[in-house]
């Protein structure tokens, strides 16, 4: 953050002073990469790998980045994992208080998405963001909902959404191949196609992914599995033939 360049207005001095600096988020440390989400015939499907990178090191390989929120929603997060854990605490508390009314009403995915948007945008305004890009999907009363919100508070809904590299690599595939009546199997295949491209091309991707599904009947987060990949390209055979002594 280029704080040294500008002369801060008096109101900002305490935000940019050195001891206050240590209290707010400046950079992410342990991060998750893309999340991809699509609407399908019966509900929503989310996919994300289980990697937690520490800078350029692929340090943690069993990070669950897809979680259920109440009865009607699922959330997928990329970015700082500790901030995602904090968000889960906020959401679990939100759902708890919602259940405590015990009155037959419940927060649906649209409400949760908007609540998150308010939280993210308010933190951004205080120059202390939750360093995440989130995908929020769900089904309530037969209505499907899929949206995204990120650390600066940008939020929107669509039939398919992604975070990070997913926006550049997965969305074009989805724009061509997504349609409203995907079956569960077709949806998973489409997500796997996207995740495979991300695995080949995103440096922070790991080959261990999870799919989460939500329908009117409930949430299921599937056990992790790996994608089959192909590396036997001719150009990759005998890699040292043009550079003797290298490895």
């Amino acid at each position, binding site marked *: 953050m280029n704080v040294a360049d500008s002369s801060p207005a008096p109101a900002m001095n305490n935000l940019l002073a050195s001891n206050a600096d240590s209290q707010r988020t400046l950079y992410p440390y342990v991060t998750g990469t893309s999340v991809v989400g699509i609407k399908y015939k019966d509900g929503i499907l989310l996919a994300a790998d289980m990697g937690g990178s520490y800078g350029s090191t692929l340090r943690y390989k069993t990070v669950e980045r897809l979680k259920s929120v109440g009865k009607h929603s699922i959330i997928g997060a990329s970015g700082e994992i500790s901030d995602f854990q904090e968000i889960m605490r906020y959401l679990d508390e939100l759902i708890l208080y919602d259940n405590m*009314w015990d*009155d037959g009403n419940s927060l649906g995915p*649209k409400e949760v998405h*908007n*609540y998150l948007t*308010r939280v993210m945008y308010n933190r951004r305004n205080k120059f202390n963001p939750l360093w995440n890009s989130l995908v929020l999907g769900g089904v309530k009363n037969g209505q499907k909902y899929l949206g995204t919100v990120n650390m600066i508070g940008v939020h929107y809904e669509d039939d398919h959404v992604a975070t990070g590299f997913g926006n550049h690599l997965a969305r074009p595939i989805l724009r061509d191949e997504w349609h409203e009546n995907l079956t569960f199997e077709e949806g998973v295949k489409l997500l796997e196609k996207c995740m495979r491209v991300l695995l080949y091309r995103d440096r922070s991707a790991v080959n261990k992914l999870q799919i989460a599904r939500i329908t009117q009947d409930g949430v299921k987060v599937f056990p992790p599995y790996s994608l089959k990949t192909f590396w036997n390209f001719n150009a990759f055979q005998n890699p040292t033939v043009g550079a003797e002594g290298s490895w």
Partner: protein
Amino acid sequence: MFRNQYDTDVTTWSPAGRLFQVEYAMEAVKQGSAAIGLRSKTHVVLASVNKASSELSSHQKKIFKVDDHIGVAIAGLTADGRVLSRYLRNECINYSYTYESLLPVGRLVVQLADKAQVCTQRSWKRPYGVGLLVGGLDESGAHLFYNCPSGNYFEYQAFAIGSRSQAAKTYLERKFEGFMDSSRETLIKDALFALRETLQGEKLTSSICTIAVVGVGEAFHILDQETVQALINEFEIVGEEPPADEAAAPDQSTGAEPGPADQGTPADQGVTPMDI
């Protein structure tokens, strides 16, 4: 109710376990002019009697829009009612802002009831002197609640509060079983009839009453005076007995039913003509 040595503070119990200040606050509701609410599966109608203090003044506003899906009718200290309406509007708009969604009616009334309860347990406060009929729609259907100064709230099919509300309640008790399946027009008609019961013979015109409706696909709004007068004329409510239930069915099919005026003077039929 008579004065006694336990009724000075709201924080003093009587030996019989009563809080007299709270009960006195509920008396204030009974002194206000009548307010009535009824609901069906899809609509809620609120109606109130608006008596101006003199011909020169305007009348007190007793029905407030709280949000597109909720409105309230009040009876009692209208100033307290106005302040509570502002609170209700705030709660609705804050919920909408955070969740982009309509505050469920049941939650709003609980928040209102909890606010009223605070005033029954603080020595430096007094209970609100107003009863609120909260009518609204949410995901679980149409609702009518009554919030009273004690901090209690109940859900009703139909209810009336304020002075001479017992007459309206008697009418509603006869008819309420059909309300769930009533059409919007029948519900408004029943509201007007119930309102007329509280007037004890005084002529019902749109200048002394206010009607408000909220329903599926219909935001809460107060009907304007011409519409109300047209409805009163259509239902021939002015000074007439409410029609028996069998006669009620043909009312809705076409416009105005053939009024008694068309048949000459029915009061004279069957009576021997004057000899003079």
